[in-house]
Each structure stands twice: as C-alpha cells, then as structure tokens.
C-alpha cells in the first residue's frame, strides 16, 4: 500500500527529512528482525526523537488508517519488528536517553531506544543493575524488552521484564498519550501496565519506561558442570530446583552448541562434553558459598564429568560471553535455523530432552540446544540449509512436533521471545476460542482501529481478526425476566 504524497509530506514535517527513510534500499533493510524468514518492508520508516512526534505520527496514521510497526533494535526472534502489510515503521533508535536515575528509590526512567546494557553500565559504579538480561542485552532496546516481556538467564531468580517495570508512557493506537504506573506502586485501577508489558507493540508505542533497579549482589559464584549425557544434566537441573536452591541462572548447552561457541569466542567450554550446565548463584557470600557447594554436589551425584568454579570475574565473564553469543554463534553450524522457545514444567526436562533427540532422528535434522534450563524454557535450534527446500520442510515438521510435545507436557508456546508473526498460529494450541476472544477485545480497547502492528501476537481470525463471541453457557429455560 504505497503512501500518498501528502501523507509523506506530513510525516516529513513531523520528523524532518533526516528522520524519514523513504528510499527502496533504506526500507529494505527494515524488512525483517532476526527472524529473517518473515519479510515485509515498511512503506516508510520514521525515526522520531521525541514523544510528541510519536503522538503526531500515530494520529496521522490513524486518520489515514495506515498500519504502524514499532521497532527497537530489531533483534526480535519472532517476526515482530517487520511490516507484513507495509505502513509506517517507527524506529525508537534515536530516542535513547536516560531521563532520570533515582537511586534513593531504586528506579530509573529511560527512553525506549536505550540499549538494555547501557542502563546497567550507567548505574553499575553505584552498585546497581537492571535485572532483565536477555542474551541480546548488549543490543536490544529497553522498549523492545518491554514489548516482548523479554526474559534472560538471570530471570530464574529475578523474574522477567514485567517484574521490573514500574511505569510506562504509551502512545496508544488511538493516538492518546497515557501514563501507566509510575515510581509509586499500587495505583488504583486495573493493572494496565502489566497488560501492556508484552503486548508487542499492538497496544501502542512505548515512549518512556520507568524501571526498577536492583542492588548488586554481594557475591557471585559461577559453576560449570559438564556431563557426558544430556539426560544427566537435565536431571541435575530438576534436582537443584527440587532441593530448594534458586540459582540466579541455570543454563544448559548441548554438544553441538558447545562446539559452535568454542569456535566462536573461545569460551573454553569442555570439548568432549555432551552437555554443559552453567549455574550461577548470587546473594550474600555465605549463602552463595553453601548453596554453591550443594549444587556442585548434586552435579557430581548425577554423574558430572567435571565441575569447575570460575576463579575470578574475568573467567566468569568468559563463561557467560560464550553463552550470550550463542544465538549468533550458530551461524558457524548452519546458514539458517528455526528457533523454538517453548517451555515445559522443569520437572519434565529429562523427558523432553529424550523426546527432542527422538524427533531430531525422526526428521533427520540437527538440533542444537542452548536454554534456560532452570525454568524449563527450551531454545532448540533446528538447523537447516535454506538452499535446500527439502531441509526446510523437515525442519518445520520437527518444529511442529516439538511444540506439540511441549504443550502436551503442560507447557507453553513461548517463554520469553514472544509471539509475533511466527507463533501467532500456534496460540490455539494453548488457548481456546474464549481465551483468544478475550485477548482480541483487550487489544481493541487500546487500538480501536487495528492499526498497531497488525498480524502480530494473535492469530488472524476467520472474521478478519475481529473479536468474536464464543458460545455462552446455557441459561435455564424459563429464566427470562
């Protein structure tokens, strides 16, 4: 849907020529996020610097019924920050200021384009940090984190993004600027803040975020345990959780992944291990010490090959560097892959790992694993070469089967990456008509004209994605007034 001349002129008036991308080449590079399988270039990209500009853009688009796609750093893994039906993309990259740091109340207010890690870097010297740490934290934007409700390795102990957002400034699809929540907790009324976090840009554009900052832990201990069988590692995970230890992070890598990472950054993971657990404990020194010993003992009991404790901050950083760059390092294994994000109850880890191996064998695909084992959040990477159509088909079949297996075990379709375009079709596995209907109607309250990030988060309904009425329970006969 090409945009009209007057529309573009108006857009340019709002953001200025340097804030508007109209060229074919410029629009093309915005056609996908990290999930390059889904492509859709916007008709224009606006790069505003102020909230007021965003309000104007949304109102302009609303008037003309032009779809809007918000975009942060474009690291999403779900086909989120791309424009399947064109329209205007709003990039937050130039809205990246830290507006306020309020250490006495342990919070900060930032613009949405600020890179996650930059916030922690800004407060680290004073002993604080921003807890959500997606592995993309060195590049993903806080606005993107809020929109996808991003998780990360340390979310096991600290919770995902939603647990750390105190307030949002949001320009809704109706063009209204609303402030939800704030530094003071417990505002009367519905927790719209809670609902808006994770809404993937379908409610509106987040233009400012107030986050909670945490005091850095006194001691940190990182343990690396390697195993000769992935089942042993999975059982160790279950045992650690069942023992009442809540590590800050509990990550697992399988053989294939270990190899790719070792080649990539030289993280020094044991070469001959079939699985590696990265266990991080933090907190008061005495607690970390005691629980660290216990976790190590559990690993030995489950047949660990080796249990290594990072000797210093540098070694710890190296162990983590590998883990954080895993998704990128897969490029060394295969040109393309499908990435899953399903969750199973953590006690089901050993079972799902067995299932995963079987599925890989059945469909003759390689599956690499690197995931947040502590909360049962799998990230199997199903490798394929997109130049061979047959491989893609097999990968897709394996993907589908895996997803169903996870749901059958009581899990969920996505643990942290979000739904986007990619997983919208899978939501019915987990939700019934009534449940989806509730969500459609919720969305409409924020975006009455369905202009915000269309096609994402909810499956398109037969009736054009409009809300529909599920069957109501039967009312007894004769009960009419």
């Amino acid at each position: 849907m090409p945009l009209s001349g007057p529309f573009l002129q108006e857009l340019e008036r709002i953001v200025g020529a340097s804030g508007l991308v109209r060229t074919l080449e410029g629009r093309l590079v915005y056609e996908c996020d990290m999930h390059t399988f889904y492509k859709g270039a916007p008709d224009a990209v606006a790069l505003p610097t102020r909230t007021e500009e965003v309000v104007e853009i949304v109102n302009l688009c609303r008037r003309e019924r032009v779809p809007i796609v918000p975009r942060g750093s474009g690291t999403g893994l779900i086909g989120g920050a791309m424009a399947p039906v064109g329209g205007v993309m709003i990039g937050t990259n130039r809205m990246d200021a830290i507006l306020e740091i309020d250490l006495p109340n342990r919070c900060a207010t930032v613009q949405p384009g600020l890179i996650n890690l930059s916030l922690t870097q800004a407060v680290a010297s004073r002993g604080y940090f921003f807890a959500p740490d997606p592995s993309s934290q060195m590049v993903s934007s806080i606005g993107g984190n809020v929109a996808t409700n991003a998780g990360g390795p340390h979310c096991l102990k600290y919770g995902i993004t939603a647990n750390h957002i105190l307030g949002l400034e949001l320009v809704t699809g109706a063009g209204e600027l609303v402030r939800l929540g704030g530094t003071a907790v417990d505002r009367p009324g519905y927790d719209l803040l809670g609902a808006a976090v994770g809404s993937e840009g379908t409610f509106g554009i987040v233009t400012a975020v107030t986050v909670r900052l945490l005091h850095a832990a006194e001691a940190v201990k990182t343990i690396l345990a390697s195993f000769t069988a992935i089942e042993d590692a999975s059982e160790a995970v279950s045992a650690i959780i069942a023992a009442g230890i809540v590590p800050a992070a509990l990550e697992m890598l399988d053989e294939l992944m270990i190899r790719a990472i070792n080649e990539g950054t030289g993280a020094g993971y044991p070469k001959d291990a079939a699985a590696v657990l990265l266990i991080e404990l933090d907190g008061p020194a005495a607690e970390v010490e005691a629980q660290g010993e216990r976790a190590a003992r559990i690993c030995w009991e489950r047949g660990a090959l080796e249990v290594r404790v990072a000797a210093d901050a540098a070694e710890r950083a190296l162990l983590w560097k590998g883990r954080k760059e895993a998704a990128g390092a897969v490029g060394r294994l295969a040109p393309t892959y499908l990435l899953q994000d399903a969750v199973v109850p953590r006690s089901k880890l050993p079972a799902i790992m067995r299932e995963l191996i079987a599925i890989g064998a059945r469909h003759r695909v390689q599956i690499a694993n690197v995931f947040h084992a502590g909360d049962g959040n799998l990230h199997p990477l199903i490798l394929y070469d997109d130049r061979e159509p047959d491989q893609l088909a097999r990968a897709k079949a394996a993907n589908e089967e895996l997803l169903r297996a996870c749901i059958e075990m009581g899990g969920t379709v996505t643990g942290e990456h979000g739904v986007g375009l990619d997983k919208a079709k899978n939501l019915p596995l987990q939700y019934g008509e009534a449940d989806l209907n509730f969500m459609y109607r919720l969305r409409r309250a924020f975006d009455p004209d369905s202009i915000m990030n269309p096609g994402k988060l909810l499956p398109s309904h037969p009736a054009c994605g409009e809300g529909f009425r599920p069957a109501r329970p039967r009312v007894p006969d004769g009960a009419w007034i």
Partner: protein
Amino acid sequence: MAFVPGSAAPDIDEIRKCVHCGICLPQCPTYRVLGEEMDSPRGRIYLMRAAAEGRVGLTETFQRHIDLCLGCRACETACPSGVRFGSLLEATRAQLRRSRSPARRRLLEAFVFSVFPEPVRLGLVLAAFKLYKRSGLRALGRASGALRRLPSLAAMEALLDDVPAAIPMPEVVPACGRLAGRVGLLTGCVQRHLYPHVNRDTARLLSLAGFEVVIPRGQGCCGALELHAGRPEAHAARARALAPAFPADLDFIVTNAAGCGAAMKEYGHRIPELAPFAGRVRDVTEVLAGADLRLGPLDLTVTYHDACHLVHGQRVRHEPRQLLGRIPGLRLVELGDSELCCGSAGVYNLLEPEMARELLDEKLARIAETGARVVAAANPGCLLQIAWGCRERGLDVAIVHPVELLARAADAYQD
C-alpha cells in the same frame, strides 16, 4: 545479481554467515551517530545480500551507505558468527568502483590516491605545504574560501598543523645486548613524514629489546588505503612489491602503524604466495610485550585509545596497555568507548568530514572525561585526527604513539 560475478564479488557464503542478530550494531560508529539500520553493519550486509540476490541495484543510495562505512571493523570484533566484514566491504567497494562513483568523490579520491600511498610524492606535497604555511599563504587561502570548495583539502589543511623535519634512519640498527632476533621495520608513508620520531623510537626500543632492526631503503607502501577503497588490483601490486623489499630470513616484519599492520597480516587472504610473509608481520607492541625492557619512571596520567585496525583488525588490545602499565609512575586510566573509531579511518576524514567530525567530538568528550593529559594511540591516522581535534577545542592534551612513552621511559631508566 547486481554484482559483477567473479573473484572480486563479495563472497555470498560470507554474507550468509550473518544471522541478522544485530549484536554488532552498538559497536558501529556510524550506527551510533545516525541510529539507522542501513548505516549499520547488519544493514550494510543486508544490502550486499540484496544486491547479490538482485533485489537492489548498485544505486547511488546503496553507494552512499557503503561510502559512509569507516571500515573500522568494530563489527567484526563484535560478531559472534565470525562474519569477515572487512573483506565484504573491500569487495563491495571494488564492485562499486567498477559500476559507479559520483563525480565529486572521484576527484577527491584521485587526488588522495595519487599522493598518499607514494612516499616520495607525499613528501613533496608536504614540503610544499610547509612552504605554504610559513609564507602566510595559508591565511590568504583560507580567507579566499578556495579551500572550502574542496572540503577534503580544508580538512587536510586543518589536520596538518606542522610538518616536522625528516629524521634520517640507518639501514640497520644493531641490537643492544644479547641478540633476540632480527626484524624488519616498515616505515610507512604517513608515519615516515609526519611522525619520523615514532619510527626512530620504534627502532631504538626494538634494539634495546635485543633485536637487530633492518630498515630497507626502497620499501614502498603497503597498499592498505587502496584496499579499503575498493582498488584490489592496485593493492595487490603494492603488496607484491613490498614483500620482497624485506629479506626473507627476518623473524618479524614490525609495523607501528595499525592500518599497515592489519593490511599486511591479511596479504595471504588474497595473494596466497604472500602468506608466509604475512605470517611474520607483527605490531611493535606485540613484539615488545614479550621483551625485557628497562623502563624508568614517568609521572604522567595517560589514557589509551584503541586504533581500529589494531584492536579490530589485528585483535591487539592487551599488549599496548600491558606495556604502558609497566612504566613506573605512569597512571593508565581507561578511556570510555576506547574502541570506538575516532573518525580518522585512513582517508575517511578527508572524504566524509561530517561523520568524521561527529565521531571526533564524541572521542574528545570521552578523553576529557578521563582527565588524562596524554592520549596514546598506535596509528598515525588517529594521532593526526585526535591532535587536530584537541587543538581546535583548546584541549591541553598531548597525543602520542605508545612507543614514544616507552622510549622516554627507557631514557629515564637509571641503574
């Protein structure tokens, strides 16, 4: 396919190694300044891919985004997939040169490339410059606005504060004490004329470290600038000429200019028979880091700027810091964003003065934050650029090559 096929086209397999994760984005100077995808490494690779797939042509817009790239290779350091962006960029630039090149830039490039890689010509131009400066013509030239019409000349005029007198170098500098090995020294085009004392200090330190230093007279240019500008043939010719200038039995070929070192270490990628030569190339800090130097105290607060082609091109990050840290009394303070390009980037500051300016401002702000009075950087381009910036801003900061500090410390040593 918009690229002309053949060995000079960007390697599609290399392009495909990019998994579009974006981890390189925040490390890219142009992305940091502009905040737009097509001026990021991921975006540039995506454009290359689109060109390779025939989805876009080698248009002016395409070229604009490639031109704006500094070639600093910070993206390579950041990339967990190991995408060799530098070589993709070189190949893309070569393709662009074949098919298009806007007039203004062509003129500038023609001038730049006729002067810089030719030590003799560069020497002549600089001599003329010296004259021009002393005769007061400079003020006149500036006032007339003649310089402004060619912005690159204006930039160059500003960069070159003064041209020092040449320092004659012997062909061989003997080793002091026990012989540790024999090395060759690349004197470099810019280094030789603008920072002759850096070459002198390098040779001295190597000698103190036990190396016999061979400085071949007829050595030419390493060809780095041409490579980065998409002139692979010219680059190859230079490489082929340079290598034989050094005796084959040297242990190392030492450079003190990061850009030269990075290019020479990669000779083997394009010219397999030069691989053994390339394998012997070392940055001076790599060689000295392992040597037993006797250093006296320097009461200085110093910060260290990572030259792109040293830290990203050669992955030499630790050695210069380690060496400076060994000087008694010297306080080394970390520079914020020390790995961010200062905007010099070979001749980039002449070709893209606006972006270069933004980056320089950023760099100067970080330098000011450190409170250091001395900035060390291991590349002549950075030295020129940062020194110019400091002069302009009235920042009272000295810009030196790390070997200068080491040499002074060696002088200060007393038994």
